[in-house]
């Protein structure tokens, strides 16, 4: 592993994204628009606004889902174009490659989440009792988690179509079970047990704890679990990234 090579990969990925201003704009504008849509949906619901409960969960889900998709498609493109084969024939560590992607997309996620959090808190009046700075850190961790999962599954997909299918397979169940629809305590036993080991559950918990102003230690715990999953998936991704292919 070499920091210079990791940075080289990260810089290159960012250069590629810069060449694609439309993607960049969509990456930033869409989560903000969806937060506004959510706020609008609950506008006329009487009583305390459900926006304060669901909004934070969505702030955790966006960076995770978007980075998952972007990463699995870009990595697959890199495999198909022959650039990955060329890189692996060069003195590039497999972790350099994965961490470079993680770094670049983590940075993009920071921009994306910064905008979504800014709109939610500043314009839509979402109540955040904890620190907005920590909220941003959690969002970046969620994005890195999505990137790590995307890198990992791209090893099992041969086409972009297959890669996109991993979204309903691996991401949607996590959204269903994370506690957004049914509180995890009220899930049937088996589903509860599954929900408790899914990383997105912890990402959503961290966001919700932050907005209600829970003790820092609970947020730190959730954050560490998310980062732990991200690191584990990156290592698994490095294992599946073979220099020699059939």
């Amino acid at each position: 592993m070499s920091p210079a090579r990791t940075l080289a990969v990260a810089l290159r990925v960012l250069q590629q994204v810069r060449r694609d201003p439309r993607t960049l704009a969509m990456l930033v504008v869409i989560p903000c628009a969806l937060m506004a849509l959510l706020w609008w949906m609950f506008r006329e619901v009487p009583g305390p606004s459900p926006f304060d409960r669901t909004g934070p969960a969505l702030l955790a889900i966006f960076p995770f889902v978007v980075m998952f998709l972007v990463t699995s498609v870009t990595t697959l493109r890199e495999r198909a174009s022959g650039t990955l084969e060329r890189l692996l024939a060069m003195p590039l560590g497999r972790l350099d490659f994965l961490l470079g992607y993680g770094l670049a997309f983590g940075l993009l996620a920071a921009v994306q989440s910064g905008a979504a959090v800014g709109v939610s808190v500043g314009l839509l009046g979402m109540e955040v009792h904890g620190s907005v700075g920590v909220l941003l850190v959690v969002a970046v961790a969620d994005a890195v988690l999505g990137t790590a999962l995307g890198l990992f599954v791209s090893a099992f997909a041969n086409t972009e179509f297959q890669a996109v299918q991993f979204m309903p397979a691996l991401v949607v169940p996590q959204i269903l079970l994370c506690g957004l629809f049914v509180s995890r305590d009220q899930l049937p036993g088996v589903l509860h047990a599954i929900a408790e080991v899914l990383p997105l559950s912890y990402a959503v918990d961290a966001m919700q704890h932050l907005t209600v102003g829970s003790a820092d230690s609970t947020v730190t715990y959730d954050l560490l679990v998310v980062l732990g999953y991200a690191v584990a998936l990156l290592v698994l991704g490095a294992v599946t990234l073979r220099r020699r292919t059939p």
Partner: protein
Amino acid sequence: MTIEVAGLVVRRGGRAVLDGLDLDVGSGVTGLLGPSGCGKSTLLRAIVGVQRTHGGTVTVLGEPAGSAALRRRIGYVTQAASVYDDLTLAENVAFFARVLGVAAAETDRVVEAVDLGAQRQHVVGRMSGGQRSRASLAVALLGRPDVLVLDEPTVGLDPVLRRDLWALFHQLADDGAIVLVSSHVMDEADRCDRLLLMREGAIIAADTPEAIKQHAGTPDIESAFLRLVES
């Protein structure tokens, strides 16, 4: 300074693509000629160390193919132009130079070597096919590797460019590199110092173009190839 392949077996989907292949490649420009699908790319990938093999040995410069020590000594051009379409030529070359850890001055040298100095700031995806494959070649030249493995680098290029590239290959070989170039176009045979004729996963002749023609008693490599296959 050689590449040695002994008893190389590669299977894909239950079928042997290469079945106990032996060959030696020394300095100079060696052409690996054969029809599409005969196993050229698989053989080149095995030499570079990115092909999963099922038997035999591949030794490059005294090291097993794919070993870490070789990774900065081999320049490799895959059949697809393995450069980033959404980056400029300069950005592509600068990125690979950083990965290889070679000086930034190298980037100018390789871009000039493939005669793309004027296209430095062009986005690779908008270049012509020939320019893209030369961009890919420029990356392979970074750091003056001892071995160049080039998979069909001249396909579809205009004759003037092809002539210039072959001159470049010979210049690199004169500087001491092993240059191994594959092609499915038989009329490129006479541009090589040495030839490896390949068919259905086996090397059917390995010699200088002159010797192969003389041995087969034919005026050109295409008919020599036919005679070798039919005999």
